[in-house]
């Protein structure tokens, strides 16, 4: 990892409201992204991720605070920043009626470069979609669209890559491939800031920021966040999850109880609680209780609760 202490992105006390203050999109956000880092903004839809990325990409003006990218101010030096960022919006925004090759060529030329000049950067990704290079972008699958959009954002060798939910609506295999590519780009020295609503993707970032309702909940490495969970986490399964959850949430020993797919994740205020205690309380033969290691999502839920 080519990380250094030089800051690629500095965000200081950024706030942004919509509709004349009725909607608070960002509330006093501050964080840094180091040069060469893969930084994740993790939060549910409507948390403010897109607004924050657009401010960094010079596309929106903040109400207060300041943002810098490679030491250029995002408001005053927007022209310099637009030369050095690769930006991929959340919505597929390439030209649907142009082919893969035409789109790529167009964006290369717009950034005053050619496909040949920086082909090495996109090669790993481009070879996957190259067989379809004469196909129009509108006719591509979701995963291929995102690969093409990434190619177009990369073709001018940006110093910082800003990706807004690049894997939303993409199949699991393509998602995995996409994140592998981000890892490789990071090795080439490109700083990446990426937003995602998927908690499992957060593990793949160097550091992540939890963002919810425009507020930063925490910033840390995924491992540190998991380590700081600080409670024993129980996974509970049974025949009727909903009634179990209602029952658990009514218990005086319960700190939190959320449904995670086939299981319930349960945290007690009583650190000494045993599986037998839980089973005894639930009085249900189908119930199984086991101790598990918390995931990023568990941590996010716990941060949200505090």
């Amino acid at each position, binding site marked *: 990892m080519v990380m250094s202490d030089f800051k690629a992105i500095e965000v200081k006390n950024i706030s942004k409201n919509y509709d004349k203050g009725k909607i608070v999109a960002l509330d006093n956000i501050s964080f840094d992204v180091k040069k060469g880092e893969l930084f994740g903004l993790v939060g549910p839809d409507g948390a403010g991720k897109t607004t924050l990325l657009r401010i960094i990409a010079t596309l929106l003006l903040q109400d207060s605070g300041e943002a810098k990218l490679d030491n250029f101010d995002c408001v005053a030096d927007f022209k310099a920043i637009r030369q050095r960022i690769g*930006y991929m919006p959340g919505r597929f*925004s*390439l*030209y649907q009626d*142009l082919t893969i090759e035409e789109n790529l060529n167009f964006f290369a030329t*717009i950034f005053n470069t050619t496909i040949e000049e920086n082909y090495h950067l996109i090669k790993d990704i481009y070879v996957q979609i190259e067989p379809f290079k004469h196909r129009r972008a509108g006719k591509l699958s979701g995963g291929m669209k995102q690969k093409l959009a990434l190619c177009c954002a990369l073709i001018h060798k940006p110093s910082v890559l800003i990706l807004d939910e690049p894997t939303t609506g993409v199949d699991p295999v393509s998602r995995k491939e996409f994140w592998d590519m981000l890892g490789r780009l990071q090795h080439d020295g490109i700083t990446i800031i990426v937003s995602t609503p998927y908690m499992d993707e957060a593990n793949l970032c160097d550091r992540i920021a939890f963002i919810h309702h425009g507020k930063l909940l925490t910033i840390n490495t995924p491992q540190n966040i998991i380590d700081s969970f600080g409670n024993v986490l129980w996974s509970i399964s049974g025949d009727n999850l909903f009634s179990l959850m209602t029952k658990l949430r009514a218990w005086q020993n319960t700190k939190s109880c959320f449904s995670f797919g086939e299981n319930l994740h349960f945290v007690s205020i009583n650190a000494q609680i045993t599986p037998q205690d839980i089973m005894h309380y639930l009085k249900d033969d189908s119930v199984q209780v086991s101790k598990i290691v918390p995931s990023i999502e568990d941590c996010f839920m716990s941060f949200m609760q505090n």
Partner: protein
Amino acid sequence: MKQFIIFVKKEFYHILRDPKTLIIIIGLPIIQILTFGFALTNEVKNSKIAILNPTIDETTTKIVDRLEASRFFEIEKSINSPNDLDAAFKSGKIRMAVVFQNNFQSNLLHNKKADIQLITDASDPNIATMVSNYATAIINDAQTELNPNYQMPYQINIATRLFYNPQQIGAYSFVPGIMAMVLLLISTMMTSLAIVREKELGSMELLLASPMKPLVLILSKVVPYLIISLFNWLMIVILSVWLMEVPINGSFLLLFLVSLVFIVASLALGLFISSITDSQQVAMMISLMGMLLPTLILSGFMFPIENMPLPLQVVSNIVPSKWYYSIVKDIMIKGLGINAIWKETLVLVGMTLFFIAVSLKKFKIRIS
């Protein structure tokens, strides 16, 4: 420069890969010039008339024949009694009835005087006047023919000459007007939609986050539509000359150059519209509905501007097609040169610069 070229190329891909839109922007002007050119006419042709002739004789037959022989009239029916006149007009088929006096010829010969009454349907007053004028002229001609040797003691001769359009062909005035209207509407709509579409599809967000300069972006949106509009213009001119038989009495080169100026002005107006709206629907409404009525009414080709109330006369000055209409008439019909049209051309150049400047100023360098 490379940015500009690739952008223009990209714009042509958009146009050529959307055949429906292409057919509309190429076909619409042609259809409009044909329908308007043939439908819009204030000439009175083949007006249906009724004849009430109680005593058919040599003279009345001659007059009726003359009326029928002219291209203005067509005899719908003969009426036998004055009581049927009312019914004939009420049926709505006839515009005029020609009523001869009883014993027309013998009156004429013995009393030196005979009467014809022209009754017109004045529910459309302009047509009624025109129809009765035509009929009077034809009857007067017939009268001179009956008395070739008759000499009045003294006489004032009125010699009327109609300059530029002696045959009073309606197309001479409508074609320039339609040219102005069609070019303005199509050019304005094409550019405004092209830019707003980028906003709607989100690609504007990518373009904004790139080093592309707003001026380059705007100009590269204009050039493709300039080429298409010039093609449209050429089609309209060809149709006008060959099909409507409108002459180009002045210089073709001059006509081309001022048309270029007008098209650029219309494209710039489209840019201006796109800078104040974010949705294709609104842009379409403004450029079609918002432009159609002013160009139709205030260009001067349908209704004379001099007859309008003062406020409307003032407003008509900001309609670009008014100036172009006057230029085209001067060059095509009157055959005048640059001396006659430089003021109008300058107004169009001024409008172009104004619209481009405002569009550049209002161009949003960020997502608002």
